[in-house]
Structure formats: structure tokens, C-alpha cells
């Protein structure tokens, strides 16, 4: 059946295009932040694009998701326009959260983005609740939660997976295990840091382990997980091994991290994997890359020319 098809060349090309867009977008964000143009503090997911694209491409219309403080990739991969995402980082009305949210609170409800959350684990229970609603109304929709390895230590994570499995909600849990929680390495924050799938055992929950640097593998695994949840068989824990290339936040000197660890990470670039898998020519690749760069430049232009909210707007949208 249609869903089961494995990734064809055209799709993989699309995945690469998406990943390139996200990569260039975040590199630009780093640049603009350093230039002092972006308020607040930001987190990029450079190196983790395969997870965002693999999972989001596997989702279907009507599916919803909740992201984290590291949300640009998920948001772009699900189809929000770079212009509006960038505009949010500049605090403009044209931003996808109209300037109320910022980098850690990207929302795009039309595209199923129920919000990026800056509280670790904070978005998980709502994803269980949305998955419950889909199940109660017998809708073929799935709610997806993105979170990191560090988030598996918080009680909210436990209660959410426990409840989802107990009630068989239409939910999948995507754990992006980059082996870091800010400056804290996996071995320092979790007894099962090197095999997060073990977390699922406490709930008898189905889990799937996958290499996050291989976007095709992520896509296939996500498909499987989403189908499982969609069919009402219950939630799935997607244990994605990935790499954080840069610091925790933009500007993080990473004093806590060895050069080896950073270099090792860089050797597992999802862009390279996809590029090889596709066997695409350099010209072809550069064309995609330039396309991405142009979109990102345009996004910055769009954002800079955006409209600042009025001070009094701060008192709107508090109550429905």
C-alpha cells in the first residue's frame, strides 16, 4: 500500500532540500544573533536535521506535534514558511507567533504545530491529551512529541508515556538522543543514556531505535510508528540517535566538551549521508544549496522589514 513504499529518489531529494534549508536557516540565525540582531537566546539543531525532516515528512495532514527549545528544524520541516519563522525571531507581527513567542515558542496551528516548549518535558502531556482526543473522536490523526535525552529524566516524561500507553492514545514520542543536556553528558544525567529504548520497557511500550543521521531510516521508522499509533494499537517510543554539532545555545563556548567529541559529531552529517544516498552531482547539490541560501536571505529581508507590535499589544491574547 501507498504508505509502505520506501523512499524514492524524488522524495530523498526533497528531504535533502529540506535539510539544507534548515541547516542554512540556522547558520544564518547564528550569524544574525552574533550580529546582535536577534533578541533573547536561541538554540540550533545543526546536525539533527535528519530527525526533523524524517519525522515531519512522515506525518500527514491533521497530525499535530509539540516541539522544544530547539524548534526551528521541526517547524520548518512541517512546512512553516522561513519568512514567518525568521520574523518571529525578530519579534515581528509577521512572525508565526506574531512576536509573542520567540524562538522557543514557535506555533503554527494551521500546520499542526501546537507549540515549542521551553520547559523540558512540558509539551508531552498535551500531546498525550491531543492523542486522546483523536482516539475518543476516532479520527485518523496522530500527535507527535519531540524531546531530547535530557527530558527523559523529568517526571512529566514518565507520567506522559505511562498515561499514553495505559490509554493507548494516538501519540508517538520522538526522543532525539544527542547525548547532551546542555553541558551535561548522557552518562552524567541518565543511567540508560546509551540505550534510551529502555525507558519504554517501564510501560510495555513499543519502541523503535533508529540512526537520526540517516533521514531515510528516520522516515521509515516514523512511518511505522505513526501507522501503529494511527491504527489505535497504541503509542510508540522512537529512540533516535543523533548528534549536536554546535553548542547548547548560540554562543555556548562548550568548555565542557572535548574537541574529539565535537569532531566526531561533525563526521556524522545527515547532509552527507543523504547526498551520498542520492548520488547527486556537485552542481546539482550546489543548486539546491543556493536555493536554500536564497530563501534564507529572503527570510532575513522579510523579517527585518516586518512590523513591530505596539506596546499595548502585550495586553492582548491573554484570554480568549
Amino acid at each position, binding site marked *: 500500500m501507498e504508505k509502505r513504499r520506501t523512499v524514492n529518489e524524488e522524495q530523498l531529494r526533497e528531504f535533502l532540500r529540506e535539510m539544507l534549508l534548515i541547516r542554512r536557516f540556522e547558520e544564518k540565525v547564528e550569524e544574525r544573533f552574533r550580529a546582535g540582531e536577534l533578541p533573547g537566546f536561541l538554540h540550533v539543531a545543526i546536525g539533527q536535521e535528519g530527525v526533523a525532516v524524517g519525522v515531519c515528512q512522515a506525518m500527514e495532514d491533521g497530525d*499535530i506535534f509539540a516541539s522544544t527549545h530547539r524548534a526551528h528544524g521541526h517547524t520548518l520541516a512541517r512546512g512553516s514558511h522561513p519568512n514567518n519563522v525568521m520574523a518571529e525571531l525578530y519579534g515581528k507581527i509577521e*512572525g508565526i*507567533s*506574531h*512576536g*509573542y*513567542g520567540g524562538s522557543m*515558542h514557535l*506555533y*503554527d*496551528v494551521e500546520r499542526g504545530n*501546537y*507549540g515549542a*516548549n521551553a*520547559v523540558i518535558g*512540558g*509539551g*508531552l*502531556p*498535551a*500531546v*498525550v*491529551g*491531543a*492523542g*486522546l*482526543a*483523536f482516539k*475518543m*473522536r476516532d479520527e485518523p490523526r496522530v*500527535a507527535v512529541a519531540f524531546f531530547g535525552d535530557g527530558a527523559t529524566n523529568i*517526571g*512529566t516524561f514518565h*507520567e*506522559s508515556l*505511562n*498515561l499514553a500507553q*495505559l*490509554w493507548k492514545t494516538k501519540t508517538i514520542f520522538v526522543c532525539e538522543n544527542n547525548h547532551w543536556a546542555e553541558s551535561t553528558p548522557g552518562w552524567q544525567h541518565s543511567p540508560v543514556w546509551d540505550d534510551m529504548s529502555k525507558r519504554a520497557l517501564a510501560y510495555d511500550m513499543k519502541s523503535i531505535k533508529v540512526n537520526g543521521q540517516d533521514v531515510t531510516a528516520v522516515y521509515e521508522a516514523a512511518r511505522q510508528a505513526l501507522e501503529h499509533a494511527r491504527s489505535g494499537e497504541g503509542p510508540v517510543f522512537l529512540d533516535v540517535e543523533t548528534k549536536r554539532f554546535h553548542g547548547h545555545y548560540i554562543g555556548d563556548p562548550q568548555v565542557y566538551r572535548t574537541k574529539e567529541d565535537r569532531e566526531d559529531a561533525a563526521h556524522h552529517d545527515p547532509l552527507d549521508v543523504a547526498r551520498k544516498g542520492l548520488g547527486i552531482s556537485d552542481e546539482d547539490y550546489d543548486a539546491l544549496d543556493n536555493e536554500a541560501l536564497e530563501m534564507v536571505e529572503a527570510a532575513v529581508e522579510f523579517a527585518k522589514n516586518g512590523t513591530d507590535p505596539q506596546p499595548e499589544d502585550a495586553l*492582548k*491574547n*491573554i*484570554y*480568549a
Partner: protein
Amino acid sequence: MPEITYREAVRDALAAAMRADENVFIMGEDIAEMGGSMGVTQGLLDEFGSERVRNTPISEMAIVGAGIGAAMAGMRPVVEIMYEDFLTLSLEQIVNQAAKHRYMSGGQLKVPLTIRTQGGAGWSPGAQHAQQLEAWLVHVPGLKVAFPSTPEDVRGMLWSAIYDDNPVIFFEHRLLYPVKGEVPEKIEPIPLGKARTLREGTDVTVIATGPMVHRSLEAATRAEGDGISVEVIDPRTLQPLDEAALVASVKKTNRVVVAHEAVERMGFGAEVAAVLQYKAFDWLDAPIERVGAKFAPLAFAPVMEQFVVPGPDQVYDAILRTLGK
């Protein structure tokens, strides 16, 4: 008008709301077969089934959060937190999530969630089963906070809370469940944000919440015997607060007592006093008196508990003090 208990009134509102809209469902610990630890939801499982009357694990954080998610996905969940003391386990979801999703999304989302909870001293529950924490929620923009004191109010306000498109933290009180009162034949929604005057008076205004409303009415009757005319007002909704009604009464009586069962220090009465001294400064003939629990956790031994928890006497004495008696 029929007379029913506060407990029955809550149940009425829940059942009626569930009949009227299939998107309304309830979840909480032991609310199904057992009908809730306070017996409030008895019978609802039989009428609505286990999909809409959901027993939950002991997971205060997740059940509130699941309510948020279901609400954002179009349902109107009513979550029960068995005791207010356990709200401390779900505050992250209430304060950082429910209260802020609409705002952080720039108005894209709404969270029509009702969280029912209850607490209260007077039956020796000990220090972890009797706290009154409504003041905390009043400090949080994005939330509405209700604390009805009569069967009619609790029924009409719970209906309004369930159909409100914002998260409403709905406080009930353990000792009020058996209290009886007249209610309209059929449910009449009572808008959130409107105070209610339970007794008109001219000498002193007593602004009371929850069980202190009844204890204040007792004190008022006693004061009447001394020839003191006491007006008793119940804000009913603490957020948004009906400041106009409170100010109007104070401008009439020029004397105020604020009473709640919560600890006096940093309790809701502090906000009321701060508002009134500001908006009715020139009308006040005496300092605003606050009546609340003494500054201590709740001890188990009844003699100590009674000493800490305010009753009619404390209100009565405060009334006299405002009159310099």
C-alpha cells in the same frame, strides 16, 4: 425552588454539561466506580461510560496536561485534582502551559479546560490535605479562578467554567459539599467575574470566600444582635475580580473585613485589601481587617487545628475592631 446540596449541585452541572456537549468529559483519580473521593461524581460512570468518565493513574501533572492537549484539540475536559495540596504537582502545566499557550501563540490557540479541586480544614486531615492555595493562581495572568460557596453558585458557575474558552481553576471546599441550598429548577449559568451580595448592611462590609461566607453570615447575625448592620459579599470569582462591586459596598459602609480560610499572610485578602485601600482610600474609616488561618501548617490534633482555622468568632471580633469596639 428545589433544595440540593453543594455536592449534588456540582454533579448536576457536570452531568448537564456532558449531556449538552459530547466534547465535555471528566477525568481524575477514582472518579469513576467510586464516584470521587468526595462522592461528587457518583452515577456519572453509569450514565456516560468509561470513555467520558475516566479514572486516571496518580499523575497530577499528566492528567492536567492531557486536559490541556485535549482542550487545544477541541474537547472541553474537566479534570479533578483530588486535593488542592496536589495542585503543587501540576502547577508547571497550569502556570507555564495552560495559562500561556494562547498568549505565546499570539492568539492561535485556546484552552477550554476546567480544573476542579477542593480542600479545607475542619476534619483533622493533617498538614498535607487541607491547604487553601487559591491565591497562587490569582497571581497568574491567563487563568480564571473561581471559588463558589453555595449550591446555586457552584452549579451555575461550573457550567460557565466548562463553557469558558479559557483555563478555569475551580475551587470547591470539603466542608461545603453537604451544605444545602435552593437552586433554580434548571441550571442558570452564572457569569464568571460577578460578585454576589448575600446580606445587605450599612455599617461594615465583610468580603468572604468559600466556607468563610457562611461563617461570616453567622458572625453578621450575631453582630446584628449588637445593633451592627453587616453586609456580606462573596466575590465568587477571584480572577477576574469584581472590584466595582466591592468598592461600591465599601463606599457605603466605610469599613471592611476580608475573610478566607487560607493562611492570612499573602492570602487573597491581601490583594483585596490592597485594591480597596487604593480605590476607596478616602471612604475608609478604619483599617481593613483580614481574617485568615494563622501562620502555621495544619496540625492534626483538633484543638490545635481549631486554633489555626478561622471561624465565625474571628470574623465577629474583626467586625467589632473595625468599629473600634
